[in-house]
């Protein structure tokens, strides 16, 4: 992914492989038998998605932790 400095949520990102601009796309995530979706920037050509550090270290970790037993 090639970020630019637009400052928009998700960024004005382009796909490093296809050079297409990423578009907000409803994307499915699975963990321990549970499935969720959220909107993340994705390449309209190859489907590669960009997961921001904020999402990965924030909400995703919270959800994963809640699904793991003690």
């Amino acid at each position, binding site marked *: 992914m090639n970020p630019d400095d637009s400052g928009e949520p998700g960024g004005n990102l382009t796909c490093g492989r296809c050079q297409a601009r990423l578009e907000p796309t409803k994307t499915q*995530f699975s963990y*321990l038998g549970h499935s*969720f979706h959220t909107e993340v920037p994705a390449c309209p050509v190859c489907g590669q998605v960009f997961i921001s550090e904020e999402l990965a270290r924030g909400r995703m970790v*919270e*959800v994963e932790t*809640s*699904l793991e*037993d*003690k």
Partner: protein
Amino acid sequence: MTEERLAERTYSLCPVCLRRVPAERAERDGAICLERTCGEHGFFSTPIWKNRLDFREWTKEAVRLGSRSNPDCPSSCGLCASHVRDTCCMLLEVTHECDLRSCRFCFADAHKKNDAPALKQVTGWLRRFVKPRQTFLQLSGGEPTTREDLPEIVADARRLGCKYIQLNTNGIRLANDLEYVRALADSGLSFVFLQFDGTDDETYRRLRGREMMGVKQRAIENCGRFNLGVTLVPTVVQGVNDDRLGDIVRFAVSLSPVVRGVHFQPVCYMGRIPGDISAYGRLTLDELMEGIYLQAEDILGGAELFPSCCDHPLCGFHGAFVVTDDGKLYALHREKPQNTDCCADAARRNREFIGSKWQRPPAGGCCCGDDETGPDGLADLGYFASRVKSHSFTISGMAFQDAGNMDLERLASCSLHVYRDGATVPFCARYLTPLGS
């Protein structure tokens, strides 16, 4: 091919003289029984599992006693080098006085008056065992809310670094004194463990000697006003309220998010008990779980309960859920945890598990997710992240041991400890009461 007959060696006690004796978990009359012989008082067989669930499967992660058993266990208790678990929850008795005193069963046999230790003494005890940012403290008694200075004890515990502070209560004071509830919340109380045996007054008349349903409802309501989570704690007695398990779960879920779960406790015979306990039988852990599965099927939706990871599997079970918008339970865990006996930090993990579920997030909404549900409900990651904090719910149970079914392998894995007279003692050793001759 037939399965080999069960014969597991452990140690137990004579129920009459409490002498330590070799014992065996063995099959008898379709049940698993704890069997032992006292040279003076004879042979005893007590059912501990009635084969409503697979015993071997349920107990396969247990930490076996083997050669590590301390020959002085439990008479020299404090925790010894043979004890397997660190402290998950530390119970502190802050009084022996009680404002109820009509209970048919009371592990603490609370009745004395005006014997509460001075605040200075309680604070001194706290200083000796509190580990900053770790300790899960349960304030118990007697009835702790008979103390006017309980909010000061909570404040001291918080100042000393307790991570979670839980109040074990019958709810009478919380129902009748809103300012007292406010003071507890302002002092840093984390959540409330509310004696709650059923949803009808008849149950309370039989177990507590008076009608109490109104009291329980007001106590929950008042806790809700100050963002205090409440866990309902039924004492389950055969023939009294073992047919009300589903009602209790449904009632609890209907009061989510204030009510954070139900923690079932099959009756055990310690402290104040009726003269003839044979009338009340032995409700085993598997019977209790079967009752929950059958009576709460509509709301559980096939979800499973799992063995305790922190204590011995025969001591407890748990299930973690989110309450959905339409009042159902969404199960967070779908597979039994594996290899829990190798977790050296089982107590810490359990403490965080419980604390995170029973404590409500700060009032004013969650800062980390989307509070409003959309058409996709819990399938939306943001909504799920928010809901799992705001509407967490647990169904758990703990089967305490008494002189009639004490298994020292279970005792060695106990993580619920009582601080008393400078010693840290497993709960069931602290309240052990001989069952008469």
